[in-house]
């Protein structure tokens, strides 16, 4: 279960106050693939970070009983001075996975070859993204958070990632941010629309897309 309970999130940067969520309660439908939509700057990524547990709400609670991934394609948690292997080992230890089998899967999926033994700071952003994506697939999450899936990798890798993700979804679910109607239709069963610091639920993705077109 993932649920927002009376969540308020306010950013106060340099005197500019920005209300992302105002006393919003929302329960992400269990075992369903949920689309998260809204206009640019509505706070979709912030909400995703709150779901992931990276960011705390200003007030209210985020309840989470599933094993939720970090937002995919996100490589900020890596330490640049440590090698790919060391970073992978660290993350799998923290998540309580079997270190070597995770490492094996990452090696196979990310196709980084010998670079895996080099410090992350020598990686290109594409390589980092591959590693992060491979790692999040290797650690079996119950819920994958995907922020604009299309951003990762070259064409061949993109295809491979798509296939791998579709395989994963058979046993897990996604919460997805995307501006692409096709991607949303491809992956999601229901959706939530972020508008004016509130959240609106849609059982039907087509209804969501209709409103999305109207307001954004």
């Amino acid at each position, binding site marked *: 279960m993932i649920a927002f309970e009376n969540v308020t999130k306010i950013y106060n940067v340099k005197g500019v106050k920005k209300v992302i969520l105002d006393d919003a309660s929302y329960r992400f439908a269990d075992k369903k693939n949920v689309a998260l939509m809204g206009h640019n700057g509505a706070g979709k990524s912030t909400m995703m970070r709150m779901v*992931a*547990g*990276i*960011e*705390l709400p*200003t007030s209210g609670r985020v309840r*989470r009983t599933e094993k*939720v991934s*970090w937002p995919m394609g*996100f490589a*900020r*948690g*890596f*330490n640049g*001075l*440590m090698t790919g292997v*060391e970073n992978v080992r*660290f*993350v799998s*230890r*923290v*998540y*309580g996975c079997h270190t070597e089998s995770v490492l094996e899967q990452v090696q196979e999926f990310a196709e980084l070859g010998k670079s895996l033994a080099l410090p992350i700071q020598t990686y290109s952003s594409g390589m980092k993204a591959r590693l992060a994506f491979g790692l999040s697939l290797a650690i079996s999450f119950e819920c994958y958070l995907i922020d604009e899936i299309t951003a990762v990798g070259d064409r061949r890798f993109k295809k491979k990632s798509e296939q791998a993700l579709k395989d994963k979804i058979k046993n897990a679910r996604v919460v997805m941010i995307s501006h692409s109607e096709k991607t949303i239709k491809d992956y999601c069963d229901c959706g939530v629309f972020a508008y004016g610091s509130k959240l609106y639920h849609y059982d039907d993705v087509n209804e969501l897309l209709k409103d999305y077109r109207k307001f954004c």
Partner: protein
Amino acid sequence: MFYSIWLQIRVIAALTLRETRMTFGTSHSGYFWAVFQPIFSVSFLMTLFYLIGRQSPFGTSLALFFATAVLTLEFYNKLSVSLMRAFTTNKSLLSYPMIKEPDTLFARLSLIACTFIVINVIFYSGLLVVGLGQLPAHPERLIYAFLTTCLLGFGVGSINAILYQKNQAWQHIEKIFARPLFFLSGVFYIPSTMPPEAIAVLKWNPLLHVVEWTREGFYSNYRSDVLNIAYPLGLGAALVIIAMFAERITRKQRV
């Protein structure tokens, strides 16, 4: 309940391994330097005093008398300074939801404590080998004193971490307080032999008590009039509690 304790242990263990890797670098010589750098610097200091021809204030070995104070101070300083940067250098780790800021503090504490156990064992055995040391008369007191230093260093270090993240200028202010400790902790003298006016001031330094405790552990006939076990223990515990509360209260402002 058991699961969350297990999770906590797992996270701290993973972080400790990572800290080890970060502080010592990739090479195995990194471990060597981490242990021997303090040993060499203390030895160098002692050699200087031997050359000057200083007599030991207590017992026959000047080296042992110094070591009881200097190693304790080094341990405390290391804790208070490296914990100070625990939040700022580990910010990226908070992207993993099960890692909370205090875990980074605990990880640093366990790494530094382990390092200093090794340093202490090597140093005191080394003194014994070259004939400047002796076996401790009350080994258990050494352990108590070591643990109390952990408590004090952890408490001060954690508060440093919170203040440092609020305002980086804290690192300079902290130094002002930390510098005189070398002179106030009985490195060169027996505190009990100081004039009462001096003792009245010195006894407020918790590290002086820990140093005295260590000496009572080593020498069978060292009697300290200053030592009051309750003071460093109580202060250490209070600091840790304050630090943990302050951390929790300020967590939202920090992210």
